[in-house]
């Protein structure tokens, strides 16, 4: 690496990413899933392992049932001689946040971020129930599906959505899954069968033709798994991993010049959290998602063309769309989203990679990626990506602004 000057607040770009194949039951170990995406993301960035100055990962040992699984995952990065490294027991999108802050500070100029999870290993529903409040919620076996259903019912009761609206979200996710390289293969195949075609291509938009209408009708005939949610409204258990490589502007521009890399610029990245007890908040709104989007600077700049949302349940997409105030023309989850593949602990980071892919491969100018954590959209992260970097001032100052004070 050249002796670039340390610079505080340089724009940060994604210079490489990789998403693992998604599987309902991976026979490979988690560290091998990580090895695959880390290797490919580095190759895409044009950087070698030894050129990475900071590494941060996101995963949960509860998913694998092995203590220090997150340490074992480091074997995927070749951590010898010792490296600067950190881990969050959260979705990899929060590892991205930590790495982004590190690069903004300017001590390091390149970072590797990865998130991974094999939720098929344990009973995901039970594992997540144990991650709720241990006094009032966990003793009841408050499983994520039940909590999500309470939120869905609240939304329906508010009159702002119908069961048909939920099914429409699911039908679009399924249609996108047919052509998405990162959907669960079985789900994509089933969706292709149901639509009677091997892929109609992404039509985008929020409504579809008669074909989509028929599929919605068909979905609505299914039984509830937790009323008012049906199986298609819920995410599939998925094993998978995702990795990103970040670089400061100086390095990113050099990679663009020397290796032909197309940098995707992170122009805003913020997260906010709400109270944990579901009975203390308005479940039909996502205050923290709205606040994160405002703080990240969604209102400034051109409209977002693509939004990759960690809407694990179909009603969450409706709540998020409203809370974020996404424009009508915005394409939501062209990848199929978490309804097509939900690798817990990587789902949010996959959204960032998919949003970056929309910019790199599909000519999109501005995209939004969203990650969530906790029951009923308790915590939300918004990442704004752009084909062009903003000036230095664009991604500082917002984080400390006070507009979030009033609820």
């Amino acid at each position, binding site marked *: 690496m050249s002796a670039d000057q340390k610079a505080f607040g340089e724009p940060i770009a994604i210079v490489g990413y990789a998403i693992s194949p998604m599987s309902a039951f991976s026979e490979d170990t988690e560290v091998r899933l990580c090895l695959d995406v880390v290797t490919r993301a580095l190759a895409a960035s044009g950087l070698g392992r030894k050129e990475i100055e900071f590494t941060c990962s996101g995963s949960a040992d509860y998913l694998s049932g092995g203590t220090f699984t997150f340490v074992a995952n480091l074997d995927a990065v070749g951590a010898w001689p010792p490296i600067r490294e950190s881990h969050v027991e959260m979705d990899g999108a929060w590892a991205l946040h930590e790495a982004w802050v590190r690069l903004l500070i300017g001590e390091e100029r390149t970072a590797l971020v990865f998130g991974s999870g094999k939720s098929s290993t344990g009973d995901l529903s039970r594992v997540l129930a144990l991650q709720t409040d241990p006094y009032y919620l966990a003793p009841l076996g408050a499983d994520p599906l039940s909590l999500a259903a309470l939120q869905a019912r609240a939304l329906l009761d508010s009159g702002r959505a119908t069961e048909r609206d939920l099914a429409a979200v699911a039908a679009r996710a399924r249609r996108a899954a047919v052509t998405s390289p990162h959907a669960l293969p079985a789900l994509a195949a089933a969706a292709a069968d149901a639509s009677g075609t091997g892929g109609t291509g992404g039509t985008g938009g929020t409504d579809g033709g008669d074909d989509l209408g028929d599929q919605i009708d068909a979905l609505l005939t299914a039984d509830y798994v937790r009323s008012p949610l049906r199986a298609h409204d819920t995410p599939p258990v998925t094993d998978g991993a995702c990795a990103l490589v970040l670089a400061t502007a100086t390095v990113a521009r050099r990679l663009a010049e020397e290796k032909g890399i197309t940098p995707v610029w992170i122009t805003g990245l913020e997260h906010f959290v709400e109270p944990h*007890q579901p009975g203390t908040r308005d479940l039909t709104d996502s205050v923290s998602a709205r606040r994160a989007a405002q703080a990240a600077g969604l209102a400034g700049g051109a409209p977002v063309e693509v939004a990759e949302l960690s809407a694990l349940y179909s009603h969450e997409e409706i709540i998020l769309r409203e809370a974020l105030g996404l424009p009508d023309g915005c394409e939501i989850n062209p990848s199929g989203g978490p309804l097509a593949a939900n690798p817990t602990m990587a789902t949010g980071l996959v959204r960032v990679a998919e949003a970056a892919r929309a910019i790199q491969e599909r000519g999109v100018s501005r995209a939004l990626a969203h990650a969530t954590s906790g029951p009923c959209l308790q915590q939300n992260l918004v990442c704004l990506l752009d084909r062009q970097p903003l000036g230095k001032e664009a991604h500082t100052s917002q984080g400390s602004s006070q507009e979030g004070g009033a609820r």
Partner: protein
Amino acid sequence: MSSGARSGPRIVTNTVEFPYRRSLGPVIGTFVAALARGQILGVRSGERVLCPPLEYDPDTGAATSGEFVAVGPVGTVRSWTWVGEPSDRHPLDRPFAFALIQLDGAGTSLLHAVDAGGEGAMRTGLRVVPRFRAEPKGHTGDLAYFVPEGAETTDAGVVDGAALSPVAGGEPGVVLEPVETMEFWSSLTYREALSAASERYARSLLAGRLLGQRCPTCGKVYVPPRDFCAIDGIPLGEGDDLALPDRGVITNFTIVTPVKYPGQKETEPFVRVSVLLDAPDGQLSESGSALMGLQPVVDVTNEEVRVGMRVEAVWLPEAERNTDELGNRGWGSTSGALTGWRPTGEQDLSVERYIDRVF
């Protein structure tokens, strides 16, 4: 642990259990204490009453007042869902509703179960009343579940709140002694495919051979094989496997004094040693060989174990070997194949050679 079908990979299962004892603190502890006398308490926070009571206001972060207020007993369902097939972690073994219940007098809702008989009986706005455990245990579960107002209780284990009040002798408003702790038994079962590398290692152990893997890039030897090199971050494969000598030298050890906990089978202090295997060509070696951690010893007392001691593997008779307990973790477990490592009687190697090793 069990073996799966022959067609696919071997499936290994593992159950992790943990008995938690949680401190409840002054707020939740008081809430639980009141359940024993058939009362649900909220806590005042500013203008509103929080139920379930919390130590800090979720909106402002300010400490709540410590002033408890009896709420309900009637409450209103604010949202609900139907659990048609309850799991063993759920509060009821028959179909029930999970509901957010706003008890009369409370400004927030409590998540709880409603024993409604059928989904058709549930609706948002339904008025429900609590049922308490007839014999309280000092646990949040003393609030058993809710039923629609006016419903008959057929469950002998629960009672109406009014039935408990005289038994517990509690007048509303009397200061309660908070319940201090609550037990919670956590149990999770995991199921995964034994990796290809671990399967080769298991087969090798059954045949009485230690199998390792050498990275062609850095030369490091791993045992068992992992199908990647942790130094270089590159994939390895079966072609990198190699048989290793079942002799080596102790480079480190610890004496474990067992403390009692659920699942602990050991009662006496025991030794675990690190064994640096001889090089694949049978030569003594300081590097370029593989280390097996946390190995048991045999035919030697705890006091005799020392760094530099030469040891050899003691294999179980072939018919008794069983690798069903082997998992994917790379620690080099030999359980089910070796009884342990015993001194060879050869002269010790110099301690100085191993002084800088961590393991």
